[in-house]
């Protein structure tokens, strides 16, 4: 006899006995895709990773994640041309995240709070010589020192920083910021020898007992062009003008300054001339604005400050107080062609900003090197043809920016470390890029980019005060929270919420989620409703 109630013949039970996971033909899996910002960063920063911590207001942790790849955030937050922001998916929604301004905030905060790098790993006993204390050399020294190698930097100049000090004007990078970030690297135990020019790299390595060397001497020799000129015509080059800005004697350029060239250096020197008191600073460039290599926002800032630009012009002759300029025309290939039409410009001085060459004298007699177009060739591991000698920054073929140089330093450090151990460094395979179509943008709040404050125009024309201001804590937090976290879970609970089968297990803050494949029917709702594209459907094994 059953002792069950009347008319009840079966034992009641829970539906948990019914494993609906067997219905599934595809299964959802959590994954991390590569955010486009990270992919675009020449220094290989984990931008999404550090913004994640900044979003919750943990700035120190954000900074620590940042400096795993780049030891110069306060510098970077000022001088980087932020290719990350051009790649940012949010640009397709309203406007890209102000990554650069948050980076600067974190860098400044670190200086203000006195945060120090994590202690280096135990000493390896290996010694590495770094030649040049520019961004590339400092970056390599930092990464090598963190792994535990003894690093000595030999710098030919009187101060560290390279082009960050002797090329980039103060109004873009205040020197106390640079000094603070350089000092923090030296505090790791890196030895810096100033006014120490390497004449022969092989000899220096042998005498100093170094196991490897990283060369990053930059490109400091100004390119010249032949311009017929009278004996007294005042012609100088942009590199020496910008370098002398760091010395006691400021360059004498006069009231009417003409700058010849169209790169960022031409812009920097024209803006510097304006600040030194020139009534007119005129850039002469042989092509058009669209073809100008200088970054558009810098051109714009220069024009705001009263710098004038004479397009489609070449300088034919220089005399005392005047220049002869020929008007050019673009042919059908976009190449400027002379027209034979000349005019005269008044000019107290002419500054040539026609690019820079590398001083390769320290490499004389070194075997195995390959030099093409004045730059040292390196293979994928940043090593020159001479075993144990690596090179990076402006002296190897690349885009010549601070960020690229920092990236070279990091990459070289990893390969030098592997080489010192007789191994080969294999970078981790890049995961798939989290493109905009992988996101569900519905879930992101509408919020436009925070505009950074700019110094007023009169002070920009008369002083070397920093032009672009930084964010404060409130708007830096706002800006960080505009990040879409592309391709990486930020624990929004959507997958956990939208599953009709309760087949997502929430593991708790910081631990993410897990699928319960016993019950997951494979509907794909979690994938469709994941804002950031951190889940994918994969076919079930048959």
């Amino acid at each position, binding site marked *: 006899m059953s002792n069950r109630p009347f008319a009840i013949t079966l034992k009641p039970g829970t*539906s*948990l006995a019914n494993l609906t996971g067997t219905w599934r033909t595809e299964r959802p899996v959590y994954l991390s895709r590569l955010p486009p910002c990270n992919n675009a960063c020449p220094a290989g920063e984990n931008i999404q990773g550090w913004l994640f911590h900044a979003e919750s207001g943990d700035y120190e942790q954000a900074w620590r994640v940042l400096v795993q790849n780049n030891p110069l955030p306060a510098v970077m937050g000022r001088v980087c041309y932020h290719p990350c922001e051009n790649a940012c998916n949010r640009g397709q929604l309203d406007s890209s995240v102000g990554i650069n301004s948050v980076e600067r905030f974190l860098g400044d905060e670190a200086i203000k709070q006195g945060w120090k790098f994590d202690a280096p790993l135990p000493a390896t006993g290996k010694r590495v010589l770094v030649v040049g204390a520019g961004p590339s050399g400092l970056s390599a020294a930092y990464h090598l020192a963190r792994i535990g190698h003894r690093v000595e930097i030999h710098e030919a100049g009187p101060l560290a920083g390279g082009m960050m000090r002797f090329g980039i004007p103060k109004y873009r990078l205040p020197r106390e910021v640079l000094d603070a970030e350089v000092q923090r690297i030296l505090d790791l135990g890196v030895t810096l020898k100033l006014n120490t020019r390497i004449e022969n790299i092989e000899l220096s390595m042998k005498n100093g007992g170094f196991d490897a060397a990283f060369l990053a001497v930059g490109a400091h020799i100004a390119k010249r062009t032949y311009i017929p000129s009278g004996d007294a015509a005042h012609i100088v080059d942009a590199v020496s003008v910008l370098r002398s800005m760091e010395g006691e004697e400021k360059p004498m350029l006069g009231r009417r300054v003409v700058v010849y060239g169209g790169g960022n250096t031409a812009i920097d020197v024209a803006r510097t001339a304006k600040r030194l008191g020139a009534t007119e600073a005129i850039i002469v460039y042989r092509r058009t604005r669209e073809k100008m290599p200088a970054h558009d926002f810098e051109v714009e800032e220069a024009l705001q400050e009263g710098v004038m630009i004479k397009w489609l012009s070449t300088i034919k002759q220089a005399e005392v107080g005047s220049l002869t300029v020929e008007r050019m025309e673009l042919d059908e290939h976009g190449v400027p062609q002379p027209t034979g039409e000349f005019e005269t410009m008044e000019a107290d001085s002419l500054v040539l900003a026609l690019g820079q060459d590398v001083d390769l004298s320290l490499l004389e007699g070194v075997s195995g090197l390959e030099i093409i177009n004045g730059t040292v060739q390196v293979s994928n591991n940043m090593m020159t043809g001479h075993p144990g000698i690596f090179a990076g920054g402006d002296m190897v073929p690349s885009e010549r920016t601070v960020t690229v140089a920092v990236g070279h330093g990091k990459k070289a450090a990893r390969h030098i470390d592997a080489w010192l151990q007789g191994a080969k460094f294999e970078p981790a395979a890049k995961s798939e890029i989290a493109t905009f179509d992988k996101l569900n943008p519905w879930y992101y709040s509408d919020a436009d980019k925070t505009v950074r404050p700019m110094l007023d125009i009169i002070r920009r024309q008369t002083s070397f005060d920093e032009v672009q201001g930084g964010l404060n804590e409130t708007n830096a937090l706002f800006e960080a929270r505009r990040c879409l976290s592309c391709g990486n879970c930020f624990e929004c609970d959507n997958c956990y919420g939208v599953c009709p089968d309760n087949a997502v297990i929430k593991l708790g803050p910081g631990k993410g989620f897990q699928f319960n494949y016993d019950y997951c029917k494979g509907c794909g709702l979690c994938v469709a409703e994941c804002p950031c594209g951190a889940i994918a459907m994969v076919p079930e094994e048959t």
Partner: protein
Amino acid sequence: MGFQPVKFYQTGTYTVGNRLLSDAERSVQGGELRSNSINSGHRACQGCGEALGARYAIDAAMAGSNNQLIAVNATGCLEVFSTPYPESSWQVPWIHSLFGNAPAVATGVAAAMKVKGRTEVRVVAQGGDGSTTDIGFGCLSGMFERNDDVLYICYDNEAYMNTGVQRSSATPPAARTATTMPVGAEPGNPFGQGKNLPEIAMAHGIPYVATATVADLRDLEYKVRRAMTIRGARYIHLSVPCPLGWGTASSDTIRIARLAKECGMFPVFEAEYGEVTGVSKIRHQVAVEDYLKPQKRFAHLFGKTPHPETVARIQAIADRNIRKYGLLEEGGN
């Protein structure tokens, strides 16, 4: 309206959870300790909007009643897929009687609790659009009219789905069902028929009526929890897309529900004593075409012989909703 969305913590309150919000601002569904009123192992189709909506609503009702809740279920998908005897997915006290009598049974449960002095125990009745708008409508109207202390939740998937997609009085115009085939001059379900149950409920003058959608969890939770603070007859009408009956991908359920709201076909509002007191505005307006096209039940409007005039008539319905409820006006949420 009472629900104050958080505008900007990266995703604000658009997502189910948000690690940047304080505990008090978080949703029931985002919590690790939500009651999971309807458990895993139920037999709803992949991507079922009703299974999802039922968990959203009953978990919120549990949270709003200090877990003192009895659920009464009408016949329908929800009952069939959750409780094939002797199994059940329900983790709340739950009773099913007939297709048409859920409101009356709920009335009885509430009366019994009152007699026993157990007034802290709250009663929810629930059913699909078939049991609500057609078969149980008489009992429901009576429950409203007597102002019985029951929250009635209708999960509207716009047809009788578990019996093979037959038309109900909640099926929209032009939709193909097993009983409204896309043939003749006006293919699909005829225009000008059917019932607007939220407005009928409002006409009873009951304390609280609201519409909600599985595409807006925070709004849904707010409305259920608000309903649980009120005594008397309350009605919530929930839009729950059905991948099977609507002919949509199982992963599209929430997207379709969102489009229904954003095009104006499903106005989301709340009303007290017969007057509208709050409206959920359209955030990114879309044409009804964007909502209709992904659904196979409307495929005949866009096939080899398209029916733009029919689409225009449906757009007119959406436009009327937008006008009537002020779905695009400034202010509000």
